[in-house]
Structure formats: structure tokens, C-alpha cells
């Protein structure tokens, strides 16, 4: 079954990790996908999707207001409409409270909160024109459960989740559904970079901290995004959808 046939999706931060897995899953399900990312080099990761004809890449820094209009214009020019927005791009800083700077906090707010706000605001009229749509904002389990070194990131993700709920209430009248996805510990490119010289060992050691005793994979988040983007989730809006191997229950 093609669950996203005929739909056009915009996925930010889509050249790596969870975003890339989402782009693959969305294309597989029949969607046309606009993939954005800051790093031209990483765009090579999704060249297969572009070559397949189901996707295009647009370079974007999601914190810059002007670039949002460019991306939306490119989406409409290529595919004529927009049904799904995945605000997936985000940044993380972990530092003890007394080492955090105001610039750190501002970067967290710009990259996780302002970018989501800008994406929703810019896409909104086009979703309305399409007769409604689905917005998926990638938050994090850290937006709900935190740690001492996660202050700036948790605050920004918590703020993003509340923004999502406010948007869900506004969107309900125009058939725009807005949900948060809260990935738990997912073996994304970010984790791989931080994993040190023996990544497999690091991954195995992290497993027992999770009720399901393993780290998640980007594709497992992508499948949850497909569900939220699809009409199967047509009565679901404003939720915090944790995909975390049971971590949020503990």
C-alpha cells in the first residue's frame, strides 16, 4: 500500500540521520519530497533519492527567515503543492549550567524553536490551500525528560513541543494536524560522531539504559513519521509521540 501517494513533503535536515531515513521512507510510500540541509557535502547522502526522481534537494539554513521562502517557492515550482512539513533540522549543545553562555542558549532557541516557528508560519497558507496537511516537528525525549547538562537543549525542545500544541489548536479548524515526535536514544550520525573509536561497543553499552535494551535506529523514527504524515493518523493532532524503546515510561 502506498500511504503517501500524491502528497508533497518538505523535510528539513533531511540529508543525514533521522531526516534522511524519513526522506527514504516518504519516497518509498509514494510522496514527492523536498529535502533541505545546510551542508552541500551531505547532500550526496540523498543523491539516490534525487536520481530516482522522487526528491529534490534545496540548501537551507532553517534559522534564516529569507531561506524559508526560497524553499517553499522551490517546492511549489517543482511539485505544485505542499501537504507535509517535517521540521526535523535541529541542533544540540550539552554543557553544565555554569559553562553555558547566552549565545549557546540563543543558538538552541534559533535552531530548535525559531526554525520550527518559521517553517510552520511560511508553509501554513500553502497547507491551507492544499485542504489541510500534516506538520511533524522533531523534538526529543530531552524535551520531556532532562539531564543536568541538557538545560539549553531541553528548554528549547520543551518550548518547541508547546509551540506544536498551540499550532495544533490553531490548525484544527483548517485540517492542519501538528504533532511532535520525541526520539529517544537513536543511533544517528550525531551519535556515531560522538561514539569514539569503538562505536559498536559504545552502542552496546548504551543499550541497557533503555527498557528495550537497545539503541534505536533512524528508520524506526521514520516509520512513526510516515504514520503521522499519512491519513491513517487523521484524528491525531497535538501529541507528543515518543519513539524511545520504553524510556519515557521509566
Amino acid at each position, binding site marked *: 500500500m502506498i500511504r503517501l501517494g500524491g502528497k508533497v513533503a518538505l523535510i528539513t535536515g533531511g540529508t543525514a540521520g533521522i531526516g534522511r531515513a524519513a526522506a527514504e521512507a516518504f519516497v518509498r510510500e509514494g510522496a514527492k519530497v523536498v529535502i533541505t540541509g545546510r551542508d552541500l557535502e551531505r547532500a550526496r547522502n540523498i543523491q539516490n533519492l534525487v536520481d530516482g526522481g522522487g526528491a529534490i534537494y534545496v540548501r537551507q539554513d532553517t534559522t534564516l*527567515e529569507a531561506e524559508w521562502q526560497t524553499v517553499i517557492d522551490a517546492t511549489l515550482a517543482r511539485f505544485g503543492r505542499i501537504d507535509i512539513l517535517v521540521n526535523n533540522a535541529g541542533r544540540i549543545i550539552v554543557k*553544565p*549550567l*555554569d559553562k*553555558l553562555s*547566552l549565545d549557546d*542558549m*540563543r543558538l538552541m*532557541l534559533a535552531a530548535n*524553536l*525559531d526554525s520550527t*516557528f*518559521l517553517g*510552520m*508560519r511560511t508553509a*501554513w*497558507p500553502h497547507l491551507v490551500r492544499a485542504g489541510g496537511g500534516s506538520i511533524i516537528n522533531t523534538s526529543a525525549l530531552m*524535551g*520531556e525528560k*532532562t*539531564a*543536568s*547538562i*541538557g*538545560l*539549553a537543549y*531541553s*528548554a*528549547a*525542545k*520543551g*518550548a*518547541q*513541543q*508547546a*509551540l*506544536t*500544541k*498551540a*499550532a*495544533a*489548536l*490553531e490548525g484544527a479548524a483548517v485540517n492542519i494536524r501538528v504533532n511532535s515526535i520525541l526520539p529517544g536514544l537513536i543511533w544517528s550520525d550525531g551519535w556515531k560522531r560522538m561514539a569514539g573509536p569503538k562505536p559498536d561497543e559504545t552502542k552496546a553499552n548504551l543499550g541497557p539504559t533503555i527498557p528495550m535494551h537497545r539503541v534505536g535506529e533512524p528508520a524506526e523514527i521514520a516509520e512513526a513519521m510516515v504514520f503521522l504524515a499519512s491519513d491513517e493518523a487523521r484524528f491525531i493532532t*497535538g501529541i507528543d509521540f515518543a519513539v524511545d524503546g520504553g524510556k519515557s515510561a521509566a
Partner: protein
Amino acid sequence: MTRFGGKVALVSNGASAIGVAVVRRLATEGASVMVADADLKGAEAAARAAGPHCKAIALDVASIESWEKVLSATVDAFQRLDVLVTVATATYDKPTPIADTSLAQFKKVTTHNLEGAFLALRYGVVKMRELGHGGAVVNVASAFATVGLAGHAAYNACGNGIRMMTKAAALSCAESKDKIRINAVQVGMIAGAPEQAMMAGRASHVPLARGGGVDDIAAAVAYLASEEASYVTGYILPVDGGLLAA
């Protein structure tokens, strides 16, 4: 009863309706209070009304320099800092849908509330650690944090951002064993608070079927700031007439 006898408190946005009530409450229970607000005249009036052990100072909550100055001035004036209370007060001028909100409007609210609370925690905790006698921070933010409110997206975002910031800062202080506790009070439909206007005509949504007063917030702040709550940290206390339970 003087739970705050010999203690020193700093209240940011102390000239706001909730701020004034918190200042009055802490002072009544024995605290010396520094009332900080961008509105210096309002802060002076609040300090005067709260008694002879209170002083006022101008504060720009979004400025590092201003926080450093105010924290130093508080310790210079009273030799301690036991209690720090922040009150998030910035909102849109009127309810505004996301699609009609400019980035500038959005950021005006988040800068004041979220960056303001961040700077309070960041510099307030460091000052308390320097002093070494422990203390308590109470952040006052909106109950519309884990639930939304159409037309007030930025304010919602601040409510939950401050909620998470409170928890993380609490864990940081607990791990450091610095005897600093960090908690938050969530404001429901309270007369004088932004929520009053946001919920105008919707008192029936509140289980208690009425609004609360700023003194209800002040009482909760006083509990969390006092030694009575000495095993309570990282906790978010809703004062909302049952709103979040419904």
C-alpha cells in the same frame, strides 16, 4: 511565622502583579527583598509597600550585564542571596495566529521570558554557589505549557521551556551538592496575570469555576522557597484551580 527571617530574596519583574504579591509575601515572612524590574518606579513602589527591608533596582532581564549588576547589588545591600524568584510576563499584545506572527513578535516574547529565565538561572545559581550558603530559585511561568492556547504560541513555548529549564537546573544543582533547589510555579487563570485576559470569559473551563489571585501564586512560591520544601527540587507546581487535571 517567619520562614524567611534573616533571608534575602531577589524578585525579577517584581513590579508585575504577581511580582508585587511575591515581594509582599516574602517580606511579610521576614525576608529582605530586592525588587528588580525594568519599571524602576514600579519596583520602588513595590519595595516601599513591602516594608523597610526592601529595596528596588532596575533590571533588563535579557541582559547579562544587567543581571550581574543586580545580583552584585543585592549581595552588596544584604550580604546574602537565599531566594531568587523569576516571573515571566511577556506576551503578544493581542492573540495572534502563528501564520500572522512576525519573527520579531515571536522573539520579543521568548527573549524576555526564556532568555530572561535562563540568565536568572545561569548567573543566579553561580552567585549562590559563590556565597556557598545554598538557596532556592522559583520560576513563575504559565500553566499553558504542556497544553496549548491558540493565539499565544510564543507564551506557550516559554511556559514549557521554563518548565524544562527548571528541571535541568535542579538536576545540575542537585549533582553539585550545592544545596540550591530549583522549582517552578505554573500560573492558571490568576487575576492580574496574563492568563486572566487569555482566558477571559472562560472561567467555566476551570474546575473551581473561578479565577485565582496573585496571593495564591505568592503562597506557592513561598512554600517552594522555604525550608518546608527542602526535599523538593525540579518540581513544577500548578496553581490553576484544577485546569490541568481536567
